């Protein structure tokens, strides 16, 4: 009340009294419908009663219609009525002036008396470009900025998992119930795009001829008390050997964004009369391209119904041209070795005839199992089963069935292959590699198209007679291509023959497979089976 009393004594009231006096002197009366009404209510559908008159005015007065876009509350204005007393220009001007003063006086009076909330429903004509908050909300044109604001809804955000940013585009996954992520107060237009994998798959090219910064010495050349394991060097050092894998100036050893990079997988152990060492190493090419190892192996053991034991191993080399060959190789090696073991366990005796009679069914069964049934199947990260083809999983297949029973008369191994992963018998005492099956083509610069599973189940099967001291070895071409070249055993072949004439410990075996040699940049896998007697 104190404030209102103060207002009544203010200049507003004095202004109003003066305007009334002038109006009375001129014999003019003001119609009651010249009251202030918010304009905006009339441009929305479902207008309250009383807006019809403004709509009619909008249809006949284009100027008024265009004013709809001004985000301010406008007084509803009627044409001033002619009084009939003043016909001259001077009189009309005076009348207009008086009318304006009176209307302004009424407004300020009302402003002083109404509640603070009502004040916001009006914007001064002198301030039309700076609408009040209430006017902004009510104007249709002013709603556009509101629509552009971030739609903050923590519940929805959490359910869709949109708060989780991954570095690379992935397939749509089942949503995960998460706590609402913290929302940064930023414009959605400025949200960063997900990083593209393709941007990092190749190294930055360093212009040759420019003075380079000081070279970091390679740890392999370090002279210190540290015990640094050095891989065997075959021929001249490769470009990769000249730099540390963590060198900040290059990106030559990148993790796979999809995980399961599998730089080293190794199994060492015995079963029956067999000693087995198997290792798979990611090659420099895939380190450079931030891809996982596309080779895989699986080693299992089985006992047939007569009690004879066997080591069963499957080696797969995923095709580079297949999108998900890394998964195809892992999955195929697993399911095929499983199926081969079950095949063995359901028979009294295992020989090449038995394998030949059953292998087609076994491979057909595995073919059905290779494609993942669900997105999050173990190891199938990023693979959407609904959008894949069989060829996306293409891989070579090599299997070994090695007898592991000391007392058995059956010492012959049964091997099979789809594609070009070579099989060797290492004649240990002589240090000679005998290659079985696929021999590299003598023609050069010919694209080596190879058969691949699951696209093909045509498999070549052979029975190998193993002599005392022989080592049965399966390799992917990342190693096997460099053992013999056109009948000549290479430096690598000679080195490995010497190393593996008898079993070695795990670290030595892995280090042997990690040899450094120019151009040997593919993934490498070796499965070696020795006889313990």
């Amino acid at each position, binding site marked *: 009340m104190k404030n209102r009393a103060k207002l009544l004594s203010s200049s507003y009231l004095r202004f109003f009294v003066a305007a009334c006096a002038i109006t009375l002197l001129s014999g003019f009366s003001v119609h009651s419908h010249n009251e202030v009404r918010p304009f905006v209510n009339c441009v929305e559908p479902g207008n309250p009663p009383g807006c019809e008159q403004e709509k009619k005015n909008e249809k006949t007065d284009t100027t008024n219609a265009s004013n709809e876009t001004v985000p301010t509350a406008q007084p509803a204005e009627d044409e001033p009525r002619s009084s009939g007393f003043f016909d001259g220009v001077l009189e009309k001007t005076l009348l207009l002036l008086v009318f304006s003063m009176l209307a302004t006086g009424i407004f300020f009076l009302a402003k002083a008396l109404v509640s603070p909330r009502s004040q916001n429903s009006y914007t001064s004509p002198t301030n039309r470009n700076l609408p009040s908050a209430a006017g902004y909300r009510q104007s249709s044109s002013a709603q556009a900025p509101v629509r552009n604001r971030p739609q903050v809804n923590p519940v929805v955000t959490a359910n869709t998992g949109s708060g989780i940013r991954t570095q690379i585009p992935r397939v749509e996954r089942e949503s995960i119930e998460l706590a609402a992520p913290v929302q940064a107060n930023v414009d959605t237009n400025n949200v960063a795009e997900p990083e593209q994998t393709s941007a990092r798959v190749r190294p930055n090219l360093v212009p040759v001829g420019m003075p380079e910064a000081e070279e970091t010495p390679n740890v392999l050349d370090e002279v210190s008390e540290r015990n640094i394991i050095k891989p065997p060097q075959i021929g001249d050092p490769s470009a990769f050997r000249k730099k540390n894998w963590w060198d900040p100036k290059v990106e030559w050893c990148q993790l796979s964004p999809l995980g399961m990079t599998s730089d080293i997988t190794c199994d060492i152990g015995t079963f029956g009369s067999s000693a087995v060492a198997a290792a798979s190493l990611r090659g420099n090419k895939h380190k450079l391209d931030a891809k996982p190892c596309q080779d895989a192996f699986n080693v299992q053991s089985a006992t047939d119904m007569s009690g004879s034991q066997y080591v069963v191993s499957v080696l797969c080399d995923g095709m580079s041209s297949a999108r998900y060959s890394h998964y195809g190789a892992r999955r195929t090696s697993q399911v095929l070795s499983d199926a081969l073991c079950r095949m063995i366990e359901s028979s009294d005796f295992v020989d090449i005839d038995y394998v030949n009679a059953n292998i087609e069914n076994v491979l057909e069964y595995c073919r059905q199992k290779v494609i993942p049934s669900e997105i999050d199947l173990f190891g199938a990260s990023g693979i959407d089963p609904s959008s894949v083809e069989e060829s996306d999983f293409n891989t070579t297949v090599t299997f070994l069935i090695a007898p592991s029973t000391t007392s058995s008369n059956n010492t012959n191994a049964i091997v099979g292959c789809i594609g070009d992963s070579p099989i060797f018998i290492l004649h240990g005492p002589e240090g000679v590699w005998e290659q079985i099956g696929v021999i590299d083509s003598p023609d*050069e*610069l010919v694209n080596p198209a190879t058969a691949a599973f699951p696209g093909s189940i045509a498999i070549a099967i052979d029975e190998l007679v193993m002599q005392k001291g022989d080592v049965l070895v399966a390799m992917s*071409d990342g190693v096997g291509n460099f053992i013999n070249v056109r009948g000549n055993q290479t*430096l690598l072949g000679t080195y490995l023959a010497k190393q593996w004439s008898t079993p070695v410990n795990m670290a030595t075996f892995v280090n042997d497979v990690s040899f450094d040699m120019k151009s040997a940049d593919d993934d490498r896998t070796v499965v070696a089976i020795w006889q313990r007697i």
Partner: protein
Amino acid sequence: MSTETSGNAVLPFYILCDESGSMDANGGIDAINSGLPELHAAIAGDPLVSDKCRIGLLTFSDIAEELLPLSNLSDVGAMPGCAAKGLTNYGEAFNLLRVVIQRDIANLKAQGLQVYRPAVFFITDGEPTDDWEANHRALTDKAMNPQAPHIISFGVAGANPAVIGKIGTKAAFIANNGVDPGNALKEILKSLTNTIVNSSSSSVPTLVVPSAPPGTTAVPLDTM
């Protein structure tokens, strides 16, 4: 049995470049000399490629010269430049190339390397000024030369499409009418670089024949 073979795979590439007088006037020499360092940087900076390919640079005009012996570009500080002079004697170029390839393959094999069939990029801006076909046959006929290379030929400016088609054994390209020779050669150098990188990047080196560089058209190869 030999134990001297390391088994390293090597893919030799030769760039056989025209440096006749006309290559100066049409901006061809400048285009080549600006493109070679880029080729050098692209190959020497890629460990997969530099380990597998070797590059040699030969030029021809009145005579043929070997500017850069077959090399691993990561061991080369800078590429030599071309200089325009003389006529356009294709025959001299093919003859020198045959001798150089025989020498280089022998050297590589002596180092225990596994050598793939060489690939040659032939670049010219004009018609030949000599009798070249016998030397070309001696180079490319596998019966006469077991180490016959694959040739990809490029022609700009006044090059004759029919001749370019006869020289190429894997692919041939001719610059389109109205295309500036210098610009065409820049595109050809980029295509050449991509071909080397793509061919050497796979685990088993495989010659990846390029598609027509921008501003050029593929020419049908000569058939026998």
